[in-house]
């Protein structure tokens, strides 16, 4: 067992893990951050995507011990960014970031299981490519699998977020 300390969503977190434990399992089981989901555990579906030191990473393909000293952002870490103005028919208390709000407005998701992976991958991609067009966004998200939506509503959410960020 090894001690590993990581900064997750801005706070230092420590756990005691076997070397073989993946970052995904560490986040979910040891740190109780169950927003990161596990869809395949062999690096194809993207549901486990988190941001490590500014880059989108598949957390099922990293060992927890490898994340020592890194800055990690999970889906839980986005929720507190930039609260949006409320509106009459919007439930109170949802402090969503620009991308999340745009995805809500675009009906991007259905069952929600793939959602955290898409949100994190799209966040990393838009940060680096704020002016990306539809085809580039499709390619950038082609490593995240969704079984419910046929992707169009997700792409619409990302495009809307990009547009709103440019206008802001």
């Amino acid at each position, binding site marked *: 067992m090894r001690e590993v300390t990581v900064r997750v969503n801005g706070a230092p977190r420590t756990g005691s893990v076997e070397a*073989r434990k993946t970052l995904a399992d560490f986040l979910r089981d040891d740190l109780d951050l169950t927003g990161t989901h596990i869809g395949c555990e062999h690096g194809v579906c993207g549901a486990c995507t988190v941001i490590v030191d500014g880059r989108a*990473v598949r957390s099922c393909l990293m060992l927890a011990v490898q994340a020592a000293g890194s800055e990690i952002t999970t889906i839980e870490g986005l929720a507190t960014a930039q609260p949006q103005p409320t509106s009459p028919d919007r439930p109170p208390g949802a402090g969503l970031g620009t991308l999340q709000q745009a995805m809500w407005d675009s009906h991007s998701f259905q069952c929600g299981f793939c959602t955290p992976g898409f949100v994190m991958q799209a966040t990393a991609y838009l940060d680096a490519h704020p002016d990306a067009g539809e085809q580039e966004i499709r390619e950038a998200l082609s490593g995240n699998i969704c079984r419910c939506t046929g992707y169009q509503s997700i792409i619409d959410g990302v495009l809307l977020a990009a547009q709103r960020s440019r206008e802001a």
Partner: protein
Amino acid sequence: MPVKLPYVEYEAPTTMAEAVDLLAEHQDEASVLAGGQSLIPLMALRLARPAVLIDINGLSELVGVSVTDGTVAIGAMTREYVAEDSATVGDTVPLLAAALPLIGHDAIRSRGTIGGSLAHADPAAELPAVALALDAEFVVRSRAGERVIPAADWFEGYLATSRRPDEILAEVRFPAAGPGTGVAFLEVARRHGDFAIVGLAVSLTLADGVISDARLAFAGVSDVPIRAAAAEDFLSGERPSAELFAEAARRATAGLDPPADLNGSSEYRKQVAATLVRRGLQAAADNAYERQ
């Protein structure tokens, strides 16, 4: 159907000296962990069960791109996304720059490394074909010292290289592309980002409209990447034309005996390989004119 890694001992050396000592001690009981994008899923599926993982992500001396006298040295632990974003790589090894965006997806390239991919040597991957096409050199280090292995001697079999169990791949050296060179990397894959069913790395150098150097290497047609030497010889000294490229395609694929799998029969792969040669040579020729 396992998905959790089996028990493994873990070492994270911070210097090359430490790393090669560990490998000398553990030999083939150890696996070197670089980007992990190939090794970790193999372990999760319990198809690979090393006794020890030697994590070399702490070896910062293995990171970086440098150019000396027409040789581009890329440290083995250089992340694929870093190489992809590197203007130096784009200018000096355009074939590598063409192949990198086709490797998996953005998140894979966040962790995957140039050295890791080449040491893993999946014959359907992009980088082995690029390295073979360019006659790259593989610099391995052990306690005993350093060896430099040419690409032609590096790929020995399916997921097998001539790296000895006590050696670490430290650096890969590529020749810088000369004037008049055009490149293309084409692949047929089931989906964007998948491994190639068949892939082709092409480099063509033209001087006064005549092909002075032609390099073609296939991914996905054997248990190792394959140079299309007969086609290369045929192209040398000729002027580009559709007929020339069609004949080159015949010569490039005549001797192939590709594997059959869920994605297609051996015959299918040969057909696709021929198509890629025709299209790849045209794309490389076009690229040569653009780069002039």
